[in-house]
C-alpha cells in the first residue's frame, strides 16, 4: 500500500487530489450558473483554447524545475512560427504542400531549439542569471521578429492547416491531442530518464550535483534547448489555429504559464515539480476563464480571478499543514 502511494506521488505529486477537487468544484459551480457550460461545444472550445497555454507552460516548466526561468517562451514561439510562415510563403503560400509544411515545421523546431540552446549555454557556461539571459533573448527575438515582419501579420496559408488547428480526431480536438502527447513526453522525460533526474538534482543543488558527476552545463543547455523546441511546437500550433503569425501573439500568456506551474505545485526555487498536477492546473485555469466568459464576464475579470485563485491556493497550501497539526492536537 505504501508502495502504491509512493508511486502515485511519483506521478501525480502530493496535491493533485486537492487540485482535482478544485476542478470539480469549478465545473459544478459553472454548470449550475451557466446552462451552456455543460455542452460538448463548450468543452470542445475549452480544449482548443487550453492547448497554446498548455504547450507554453510545459516550455516554462522544465527550466523552473532546473532552478531557472525562461522569459523568452512567447518570443521563441513567435519567431518559430515566423520561420514556418516564411517557408510556407516561399513554397507558394496558400498553395504550399504538406511537404513544405513538414519542412517548415522542422525548421521552426530547429530555430526554437537553437535559440534555446544559445540561451542555455549562456546560463550554463557563462553563469548568466536565467532571468537576465532569457530576458535578453526575449528582447532579441522580439526585435528580430518585428524587424522581419515590420510589425505586421503574416497570413495566407494552405487550407489543410485548418484541419490541424481546428480539426478533431475521434471527437477530440487535434490541438488537445498535441498537448496531451507533449505532456506525456515531458512527463516521461522528467520522471524516467537520466536527463530528468539531472534536472531535478540541479534544480535542488547544482554544485552538489556537479560534485557527484552530473553533467550540469550540458544538462542546463539541453533544458533550454528542449524548452525552445516546445515553444516552437506552440508557435506551429498557434499558426494553424489563427491562420496567421504576428510578433506579440500570446504575450499575455507569459506570466500565466508561471501561474500554472506554481498552481501545479512546482517549487519556485527548483528541484520539485510534476507534469500531471500542472496539467490539472491548466484545466482549472481554462475552466475558470471559459466559465466566466459564458457568464458574460469581461475577459480582464477572468485574469483577475486567476490571480485571486493563485493567492487562495497558496494560502490553503500554507494552512493545510497548520490545520492538520491543530486537528492532531485536538485529537490528542
Amino acid at each position, binding site marked *: 500500500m505504501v508502495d502504491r502511494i509512493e508511486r502515485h506521488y511519483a506521478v501525480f505529486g502530493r496535491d493533485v487530489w486537492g487540485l482535482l477537487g478544485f476542478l470539480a468544484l469549478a465545473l459544478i459551480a459553472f454548470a449550475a450558473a451557466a446552462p451552456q457550460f455543460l455542452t460538448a461545444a463548450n468543452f470542445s472550445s475549452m480544449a482548443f483554447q487550453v492547448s497554446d497555454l498548455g504547450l507554453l507552460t510545459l516550455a516554462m516548466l522544465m527550466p523552473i524545475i532546473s532552478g531557472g526561468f525562461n522569459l523568452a517562451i512567447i518570443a521563441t514561439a513567435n519567431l518559430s512560427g515566423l520561420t514556418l510562415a516564411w517557408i510556407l510563403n516561399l513554397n507558394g503560400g496558400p498553395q504550399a504542400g504538406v511537404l513544405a509544411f513538414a519542412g517548415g515545421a522542422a525548421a521552426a523546431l530547429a530555430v526554437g531549439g537553437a535559440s534555446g540552446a544559445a540561451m542555455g549555454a549562456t546560463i550554463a557556461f557563462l553563469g548568466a542569471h536565467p532571468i537576465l539571459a532569457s530576458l535578453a533573448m526575449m528582447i532579441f527575438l522580439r526585435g528580430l521578429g518585428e524587424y522581419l515582419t515590420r510589425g505586421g501579420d503574416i497570413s495566407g496559408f494552405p487550407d489543410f492547416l485548418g484541419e490541424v488547428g481546428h480539426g478533431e480526431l475521434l471527437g477530440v480536438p487535434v490541438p488537445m491531442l498535441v498537448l496531451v502527447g507533449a505532456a506525456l513526453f515531458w512527463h516521461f522525460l522528467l520522471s524516467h*530518464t537520466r536527463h530528468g533526474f539531472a534536472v531535478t*538534482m540541479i534544480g535542488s*543543488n547544482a554544485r552538489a550535483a556537479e560534485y557527484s558527476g552530473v553533467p550540469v552545463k550540458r544538462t542546463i543547455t539541453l533544458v533550454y534547448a528542449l524548452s525552445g523546441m516546445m515553444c516552437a511546437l506552440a508557435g506551429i500550433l498557434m499558426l494553424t489555429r489563427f491562420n496567421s503569425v504576428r510578433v506579440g501573439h500570446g504575450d499575455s500568456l507569459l506570466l500565466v504559464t508561471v501561474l500554472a506551474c506554481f498552481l501545479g505545485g512546482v517549487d519556485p526555487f527548483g528541484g520539485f515539480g510534476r507534469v500531471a498536477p500542472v496539467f490539472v492546473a491548466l484545466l482549472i485555469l481554462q475552466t475558470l476563464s471559459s466559465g466566466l466568459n459564458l457568464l458574460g464576464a469581461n475577459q480582464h475579470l477572468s485574469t483577475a480571478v486567476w490571480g485571486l485563485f493563485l493567492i487562495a491556493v497558496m494560502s490553503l497550501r500554507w494552512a493545510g499543514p497548520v490545520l492538520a497539526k491543530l486537528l492532531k492536537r485536538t485529537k490528542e
Partner: protein
Amino acid sequence: MPVAEHDESAADAAPAIRFDRVSVTFGGVRALDGVSFEVDRGEVHCLAGENGSGKSTLIKVVAGVYRPEPGAHMEYFGRPETTVTPQLARRRGVAVIWQDLALFPEMTVAENIAFDHLVGGMRLVEHGAIRKIAESALARLGVDLDLGARLNKLPIARRQLAAIARALASDAKLIFMDEPTASLTQAETDMLLDVVRTLSASGVAIVFVSHRLAEVLEVSSRATVLRDGRLVGVFEAAGLSQTRLTELMTGKQFDQRISARSFAAAPAVLSVEDLSRHGEYEGVNLALRAGEVVGLVGLIGAGRTELAHTLFGMTRPDRGAIRLNGRNIAFRNNRDAIAAGVAYVSEDRLALGLVQQQSIADNLVITRLRAISNAAGAISRAKKAAAVAKGVTDLAIKIGRPADAVSTLSGGNQQRVVLAKWLATSPKALILDCPTVGVDVGARDGIYRIIRRLAESGIAILLISDEVSEAFFNADRVLHMAAGRIVGDYDPRSVSLADLESAVYA
C-alpha cells in the same frame, strides 16, 4: 511582582540559571526527561552530548523557544518564572549563538553588532549611534574588528566574535555557543578562549555546547553531560579528558589503537609529482598505494581541499604530473576522474556532498545513472531499486523509506549514503575530506570501520582530517601539509600523538 524586582541582595547570590525537572516530549519521543541544569554567574560551562541527546532542546527551553512540561522549575538570576517566551529570556539576559551564527552577511560588522537596537519601531537609523554601540561591545570583548567591513568579507572566526559582540550589545549575561570551535583553527580557537576568559571575568556566563570539547575544557569549570534526553551528571572540568567525556556521552568505551601498517611494497594507485597550482599548493609529491590509508592533516587553508579538488578533476594543476596506475592522466572535469576510478567525499556534506532536499534513493544512484539506464537514457525502475537496496545493505544505512529526503537522516547515516554512492562507482582511489565532520562520536567508529574495510578491499584512501588524532589512529601514514606544501611524513608507529599534534598546531 515589584517585590522580586527590588530584592537585589538575594538575587545577586543566585546562579545565572537554575532549571529542574525539565521534560519535553515531541510526538511521543521524550527529548528531555527530568533534566536539571545550573550555570553560575560568570561561569564557563560545557553542555555535552551527542546529536539527539537533548542538548539543543535544553538550550531552546532556556531560551524560551520550547515550553517544558508542567512541574519544571525555571529560574533566571534568582527569579523564578512560570512561562518563558523568547522575548522574556532575552530580557533576562540569555543569548544563543547558533553554529550558523544567524548574522547578516551583506551588512557591516557594526550593523550586525547593533542589530538588536536597529529593529523594531519606526526610527531613523543613526550611523553614529550604531558605531558607538558596536565599539563599546567590542571593547568589552577586548578585540578589534573593522566596523565598516561587510561581514561576509571576514573569516568565520571573526564573524563569531561579531556574533558574541552582538549578544553583549543587547546586554546578555548568559551566552550559549553552539559548536563554536567546529570550523576554527587552533590559533583562532585560542583567540576565542581568550575572549571567553575576558567575558567570564566581567561576569558573563558562557555555555559551550558541543560534542568536541577537548579545547574548551581547559577554560571551563564544569561540564553537564546529557545522553538520550537524560542527565548523565555534572562533572568538574579539571581532570576530564576527551576520552572520558566521549565515554560519558555515549555510554560506551572506545579503545583507540594505532592501526598503521606498512605499504612500501604495494603498487601506487594514484600518485602526483611536483604538482603545483598557483595560490593553492606547491610542489606536492605523494603516492597512494593499494590498500593504504594516507592521512593528510594541516590547518584550514593549508591547501588540502584544493589538492583534493585537483585529484578529483575539479581544477587543473599549473605544473606537475598526476598518475593513475603508473600512467599519466589529465582530467578535463570530475566526470573523467570518476570514470578513471577516483572518488571524492566532500567536507561540506550539506552543500556539496548530498542533494539534501532530494530522496535517499536518488542520492544513492546519482553517481551511477548510466548503469541503471539504457542507451536512450531511460532509467530502469528495477535496476534503480536494486542499486539502492545494495547501497543500503552494504553500508548498513539506517533509513525509513528510500523516498524520504536524505536530510531526514542523522549525520552518520548521511555520510554512509555519501560513501555508498561513491563505492557504487568501484573507485580505485577514494579521497575523504573530513569524513566525520558533523558525525556523532558514537557513529564515527562505524565510519572508521568502513574506511578500514574499504582499504582492505584494495582501495587507496586519502584521509584528510582536521583532527590529528583521527588521522593518527586511522591512517597508515600521516602527511602534514602547511601553506600549500607537504612538510612532513609520519609513521604513527614511530611518533607520538602529542608530538604530531604539536608539529601541526604549532
